[in-house]
C-alpha cells in the first residue's frame, strides 16, 4: 500500500515527501519515537500517521470470521486423489488451500500423483473435485503429455460425466529452468492467470533443484524459501487454490551424532537434531529425508511422502500388487500420521485395501 494513496494533514504529507518513505510498511516497521526522529514531526502527528496506516491495513481483516462461519462457508474442502483407499489414508484428500508437499525418491510416483490431481481437480464437487483447472509449473523438462492423455482416457472411460469435457484444455503448463523465472511467475504471472481463469490447483514439480541451484548461502536460501511460500499461501487464500510442491530427497546428516543445545536444561535430548531427522526419515532403502531442510519443512502445511518399502517389508506384503509402494502422511494439520500401500497401473494410483491397521 503506497502512502501517497492515503490522505493526511498537509504537514504530515510534507514530512513524508521529504523522506524516503513510500509504503505503509515503511511507517509500520518503525515505532513512534523513530518516526518523530526520522520525519521530524511531533509525537501527536506520528501517532496520527501510525493510526491511519493501521486502519488501512486492518480494515480488510474486520470483521473477523468466527470458526462457525468458516465451517458453514466450507472454507477448507478436500481435493480427492480419485481413489477411495488413498483418500482414506490422506484424511479425505489434500487440502484445497495451503501448501501440500509431495516428497519421495525418483520413481516413486510423485509426478504420477500430480498428473492425477490435474484431472481430479476438474471433477465436480460431488466426486471430490474442485470443479476448476490446474497450473503445472515444471522445472525438470516438459509436461508428460503422453501419460496425461492416457490418464485422461481412463478417467473418461470410468466417469461418464467427464466425457464431454476437454480435460486437457484446463491444464496450463509452463516450464521454468531457474529460480528467478519461477519467482517472476509466482509473483507476477500467476496472480493474473488465476484472476482470469477458474483455477483451483497449482503444482510446482519440482521445487528442489531451482532453489538448491540458486542459493548456496543457507541464510539467504531460508529467507527466499519463506518469501516464496508466503506469496504462494497468499495466492492460495486469495484465489482459493490448492498448492502442491514436489520435493526430492537427500541423504543428509543422519549419521551425525550429538546435535543438541544444552540451554541450561537437564533434558539434553530435546534439542537433538537427530530426533528431527528421525521423524522426517522416509521409508526406503537409504537414510533419506526431504530436501531443503528445516526452513522448507516449516513453511509447508502438509507433507506426503511416497516410497518403496524396504525389502523385508516387501516380502511380508500379502497382496497381488506387483510393485507395491507406500504413501505416508508425514504431517498434516487435518490428519494423523498414517501410511498405506498403493500401486500404479495404466489408470493411475490405486490404494491397496488393508484390513489391519497400518499405523507407523
Amino acid at each position, binding site marked *: 500500500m503506497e502512502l501517497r494513496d492515503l490522505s493526511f494533514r498537509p504537514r504530515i504529507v510534507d514530512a513524508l515527501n521529504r523522506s524516503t518513505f513510500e509504503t505503509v510498511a515503511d511507517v509500520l516497521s518503525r515505532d513512534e519515537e523513530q518516526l518523530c526522529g526520522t520525519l521530524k514531526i511531533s509525537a501527536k502527528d506520528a501517532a496520527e500517521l501510525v493510526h491511519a496506516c493501521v486502519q488501512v491495513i486492518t480494515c480488510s481483516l474486520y470483521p473477523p470470521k*468466527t470458526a462457525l462461519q468458516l465451517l458453514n462457508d466450507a472454507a477448507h474442502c478436500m481435493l480427492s486423489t480419485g481413489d477411495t483407499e488413498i483418500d482414506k489414508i490422506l484424511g479425505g484428500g489434500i487440502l484445497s488451500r495451503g501448501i501440500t508437499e509431495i516428497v519421495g525418491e525418483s520413481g516413486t510416483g510423485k509426478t504420477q500423483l500430480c498428473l492425477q490431481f490435474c484431472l481430479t481437480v476438474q471433477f465436480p464437487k460431488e466426486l471430490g473435485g474442485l470443479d476448476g483447472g490446474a497450473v503445472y509449473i515444471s522445472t525438470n523438462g516438459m509436461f508428460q503429455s503422453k501419460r496425461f492423455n492416457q490418464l485422461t482416457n481412463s478417467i473418461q472411460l470410468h466417469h461418464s460425466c467427464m466425457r464431454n469435457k476437454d480435460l486437457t484444455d484446463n491444464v496450463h503448463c509452463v516450464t521454468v529452468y531457474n529460480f528467478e523465472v519461477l519467482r517472476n511467475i509466482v509473483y507476477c504471472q500467476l496472480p493474473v492467470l488465476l484472476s482470469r481463469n477458474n483455477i483451483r490447483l497449482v503444482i510446482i514439480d519440482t521445487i528442489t533443484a531451482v532453489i538448491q541451484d540458486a542459493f548456496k548461502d543457507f541464510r539467504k536460501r531460508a529467507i527466499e524459501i519463506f518469501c516464496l511460500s508466503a506469496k504462494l499461501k497468499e495466492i492460495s487464500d486469495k484465489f482459493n487454490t490448492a498448492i502442491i510442491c514436489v520435493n526430492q530427497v537427500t541423504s543428509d546428516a543422519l549419521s551425525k551424532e550429538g546435535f543438541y543445545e544444552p540451554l541450561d536444561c537437564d533434558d539434553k535430548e530435546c534439542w537433538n537434531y537427530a530426533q528431527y531427522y528421525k521423524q522426517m526419515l522416509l521409508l526406503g532403502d537409504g537414510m533419506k529425508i526431504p530436501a531443503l531442510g528445516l526452513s522448507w519443512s516449516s513453511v509447508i502445511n502438509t507433507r506426503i511422502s511416497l516410497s518403496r518399502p524396504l525389502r523385508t517389508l516387501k516380502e511380508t506384503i500379502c497382496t497381488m500388487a506387483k510393485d507395491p509402494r507406500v504413501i505416508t502422511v508425514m504431517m498434516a494439520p487435518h490428519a494423523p500420521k498414517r501410511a498405506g500401500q498403493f500401486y500404479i497401473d495404466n489408470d493411475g494410483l490405486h490404494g491397496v485395501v488393508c484390513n489391519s491397521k497400518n499405523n507407523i
Partner: protein
Amino acid sequence: MRDARSILLVKLNIKPGQIKKLHDAGYKFLEDLKEASPLSLSKDIGVSVQEALSIIRQIKNDKLPSASLTSIIKRETYAIPTFCNGIDKLLGGKGVTLGKIVEFCGIPGIGKTQMGIQLSINVQIPRNLFGPEGEAVYIDTEGSFIIQRVAEIANGTIARLNETVEGSPFNLETILSRIYYFRIHDYIQLNALIKNMDEFLNEHPMVKLIVIDSIAFHFRTELDLSVRTRVLQMIAQKLEDIAESFELAVVLMNQMTTKFGGNSGPDNTTLTPALGDVLSEACSDRVLLFRRDEERFAHLFKSATKPELQITSVQFQIIKDGIRDCPLPSDPGQ
C-alpha cells in the same frame, strides 16, 4: 498535579539496582527522564532496551504495578487447561494462566497448531467446571487452522466435559462461534492488527485468549535483522500490555531454526527457537514440544515463576479428540 522536577527517582517504584544505575548515569529527578527514549536510556545506563522500556513505562504510569487480589485470584482460578495434566503442571498447575504470555515452540508437525486449537476451545470451558468461560482470538499466519479439525477437537472436548457434568450447555455451534479467526499474510499486517487489537477487545470483552500461530513465519521473510527485531519488540510490548490490561492469555507458537554452533565447525548443528532472544523477554513461560522416537514430549525451558519444579519434561499425545495425557507414561529416562 505534582511538579515533575521535585520528584526524586528514589521515591518511585523502581528496582534498587536500576535506581543505582540511573543515579550513576546522572538521572536524579523524574524530569531528567522525560525526554529519554528506551534506546538512549539503555545505552546511558547500560541495561537492555527491554529493561529501559520497563523503567520508562513504570515512570510514565507512576503507579504501583498492583493488581487487585480478586483479579489475581481470578486469574489463578480460571486458567486454560490443555487437557494434558503434565503440561498443565509445567504451566503452573492448571494450564495457561490468564494475564501472561506463553510460547510453545517445536519442529513442524509436532502439534503446535493442535495445541492452539485445543486452547481456543478450552478457554470456553464454563466457570462451574473451573474454566475461564471466555472467547478466543486465533491469528493464523500459516494457514494451518483447518476448520474440520477444529470441529473434531471441539466434539472431543464436548464429550470429555459431558463425562464430568450431565448436560453441559456446551455444543459445537456455540464453541465455534466463540473463536474469532484472523488470517494474516505479512508481518506488517500482524503488527497493525496487534496495534489496534484494543478496539476489538473492548467490543468483545469475553476474549480471554489470543493465539498467534505462528509468530515466526512472516518475520523469517525479513532480511534486515534490525527491522525484524524492532517490529517484533513492538508486537511483544503491545501483547504484554494487552495481556495485562484485558487479563487474557497470549499463546505464541514459534518455529525452530538451525543454529550453527561455535568453533567446532558446521558439524555442531543444533535446533533452537526462531527469532532469537526478543521473544524470550516477553514470554513468562516457554515450552518446547519435541519428539523422542515416536513419542511426544513437552519441556519447560524458561519459567518466570516456577524455578523449583522437579520434572521439566512430560509426555503428551495427540489423538482424534485433541491433546491428552498419555495413558501409560513411559519413563523419559529410558
